């Protein structure tokens, strides 16, 4: 990558180099080198950038109750049917594993650098600049090569194959939900977030830290939640040492009281 003159870059794109790197100033961008990208913001010297998504789903796997409502709502609003395999958010549970590892939630991260968009040979998987730059699949252009599904760095892949309509699809933050009377998208509502009875799905317009901890956050924010759900208020789904110690002490006290009964 050749040197970029700071002033020249700012003058051309309206985005200073500092702003480019930190993503502040309303135009968060992810830098991508090469690839068949469309609708990028061209910076000098072959650096092509994709606008960051205007929104991201955050989940709290320690709060989720595993009811799958999010998955069903995703399918209903996008396809008018109920299906688990068609859902663009996947909640997988194993009842025989200890909490909180008995549930995993796989939501699309709307990656600042989206490998699925990068991998698509036809532009079907693209950045939708009319809908808050959400990364989504234009089904009409999908040729079924499944490169986006292979390219997703996460498991299970967030891009998925729809064998009924025969195209790839992925979370579009409900930008295109023909079977829902609400306005979806980063500027509207998300069906999964609306139906979740635990409020275990949240939304942010800020790019999350690009790690598991950035997208799996603590939504257990009230005492009521903690008391009724017997869930810890620890950060990021964990219990603090203080909480663990307090719980152990309470259990010991209860056992002592019972023994004295």
């Amino acid at each position, binding site marked *: 990558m050749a040197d970029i003159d700071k002033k020249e870059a700012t003058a051309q794109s309206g985005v200073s180099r500092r702003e480019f790197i930190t993503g502040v100033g309303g135009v968060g961008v992810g830098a991508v080198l090469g690839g068949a990208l469309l609708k990028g913001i061209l910076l000098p010297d072959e650096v092509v950038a994709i606008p960051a998504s205007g929104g991201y789903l955050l989940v709290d796997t320690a709060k989720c109750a595993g009811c799958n409502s999010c998955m069903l709502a995703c399918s*209903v609003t996008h396809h008018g049917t109920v*299906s688990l395999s068609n859902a663009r958010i996947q909640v997988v549970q*194993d*009842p*025989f594993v200890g909490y909180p590892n*008995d549930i995993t939630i796989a939501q699309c991260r709307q990656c600042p650098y989206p490998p699925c968009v990068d991998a698509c040979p036809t532009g079907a998987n693209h950045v939708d600049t009319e809908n808050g730059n959400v990364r989504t699949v234009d089904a009409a252009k999908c040729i079924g090569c499944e490169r986006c*599904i292979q390219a997703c760095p996460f498991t299970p892949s967030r891009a998925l*194959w729809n064998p009924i309509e025969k195209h790839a699809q992925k979370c579009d933050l409900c930008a295109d939900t023909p079977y829902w009377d*609400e306005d979806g998208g980063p500027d509207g509502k998300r069906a999964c977030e609306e139906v979740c*009875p635990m409020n275990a799905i949240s939304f942010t317009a800020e790019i999350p830290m690009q790690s598991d901890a950035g997208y799996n956050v603590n939504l257990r924010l009230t005492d009521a939640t903690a008391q009724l759900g017997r869930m810890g208020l620890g950060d990021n789904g964990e219990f603090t040492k203080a909480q663990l110690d307090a719980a152990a002490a309470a259990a010991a006290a209860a056992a002592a009281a019972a023994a004295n009964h």
Partner: protein
Amino acid sequence: MSNGYAGKILVIDLSSGEVSSLNTADYAEYGGGHGMGSAVFFDLCKDKTISAFDPANVITLMTGPIQGTLAPFGGGRCEVQAIGPQPWPIEWFTRSNFGGRFAGMIKFAGWDGIAVTGKAENPVWIDIRDDAVAIRDASATGDGLWGTGTYETEKKIYDLVRGGDSVDWTLYGTSRDTGRSAQNPAVVSCGQAGENLVRWASLIHEGGGGAGQGGFGAVFGSKNLKAISVIGTGEVAIADPQALMAARAWWSENYFDFDNYKPSLPGLHSYSPGGSGNIAGGLARGGVGQRPQGCMGCTKLCHGGRGATAEGPGSSCFDTWYQAQSGVKWGNPAASASNTDMLQSYGLNAWEGSMALPWLVKLYRTGILGPGKAIESNLPFDAVGSDAFNVAFLDCIVNGTDIGADLKEGCARAATKWGRYDEDVTSGDLAIAAHGYAHHYDARTESEWGFGTALGDRDINEHDITWVLYWHTSLAPLYGQPQALPAKEMVEMIGSTLLPYSDPMMLDFSDEGIYSDAMVKFVSWHRAYTRFWKQSAMYCDWGITDWLNPWAEGYKGLTPELEPRFYNAVTGDDTSFEKGIEIGTKIWNLDRAIWYLQGRTPANDQLAEWQFRIGSPAAHSTYEIPYIMPVFENGEWSYKNVWGRFLDHAKYDDFLDRYYAFEGWDANGCPTSDTLKKLGLDKAADELSAAGKI
């Protein structure tokens, strides 16, 4: 069919290995669930007089149109029916129901239900992956499931079906478009109790979901069937998706918000977030941190919860109450969750075990049962309440050793064999309510529970009146608060939902009221409502009726708007609430016809004798607090404590006579030919005629 239905019902004959299907559309008039199950059973089981363990018995697992959808309280329920080995003295064609992920998953696999008949030569399990149905070897030399507990079976099946890849999309089939799933299969299985034909063996799903009563675990065992596993990658159409989403939003506005929780009303246990399950479930598990857990699509999330130690997953309410009954009740407050895990893994009905213990302990302490006693037993009753006793107790039942050889036949049969039935059921030491089933809610006070139980096949387990006109109306004054509404307003509000009758007198639980014509009407209404809206459509008993809603204006519940609203959004029908009552009446009559083909007489409509003699709570019961119920006396409504009341034989028999007449049944309690034909049940009328019953 479309719109809420997959279109086909899977039929598996384990004797021949044949896999076939029925068209759901042929049973459309029943809506789904129980109604379809009864009708399918009627068609597939030619001889209704066979025993539960006869290979010709047909077991059905049915869904309704709202299963697998966003209908609150219902998306996850699966209705199980067959001739059950538990009911006594006749093995009634009976029902149970379990929640979780199974019902939705079989619909996504393309099936509205599963019917299994015949008997496999060797232990098998059924592996359903969309339309691919395989009968696989469950034996120790095969997939190694037979002989293991339900937890282990389920875990093993996850591995077998997912091929060890438990995280990624799994392709089912061989081409790009054959369907994929990232989900674990939904599994229902029997434990060793079912394998060993314990008459009160249950079916277990995900550790805590259970078709508990009826002995369906033993029906599986009698067929050499260990488990059914389903992966469904498909979809089911919704008639009006926008209306479904709008209905869901409407529900959210009229129910609790987990994060902004406004307290429920006293006594409405099932209305707390996580339901009663979370409260009781909390007792079951050690460690820090638990989550509530919900059946597919549900909003109430009362399905038991899961904790950090992975003990008692999904177990709640009575399964964990068993832990209390088997331990805490006998002075061991530290009774461990292992009691619940053992019960669930063996696949045993918590009710029967809970009823047995106080009875057996009394027999032991009065010198009738024990080493060298009239009833020989070496079980360590001195240590009752300890985990060690519980292990010995459950082991002897599952293995048929010691008194377990008799107890595995159920308490009624054991008591009969021991020559103790009459004495112990008259005294109430053995707290059977009817049909050999344990006392649950109380016939003497909350009569619709007892009378509906007696007139049917089992303990009804339908909590409509229970939460509102027992728990709430009784607990509020114990907290020093008035009931949410004065009695007159309460019965008028609830009465208005009792369509088509809408008669508040149906809720008069006074000494005269429980035998009145209005109560006849109420019992009839309740049978119909539960048969259709709860067990066929099908909504969960812990969600509907929604009669007294703590978060709605004037506490007015969502019944009768909720039931048709989601049902019709999914199906595209315009089935009114009242139409549902009509369909329920039809289903109730079909069931009654089947029971008469099984040999029913009016004697089977009786309640166990202690309920006519004593007023105190039974030795095992849920009669924990006084029954303060609405009564109409001296021309006005009030709440009255009816604790201590017991039933009168003459009045009860007279009630039955008037009930039979109201339902259009003959003096023997059998639906008449006219009644059946008016309901469109011509086949049932013909078969009853041919059997000389009418």
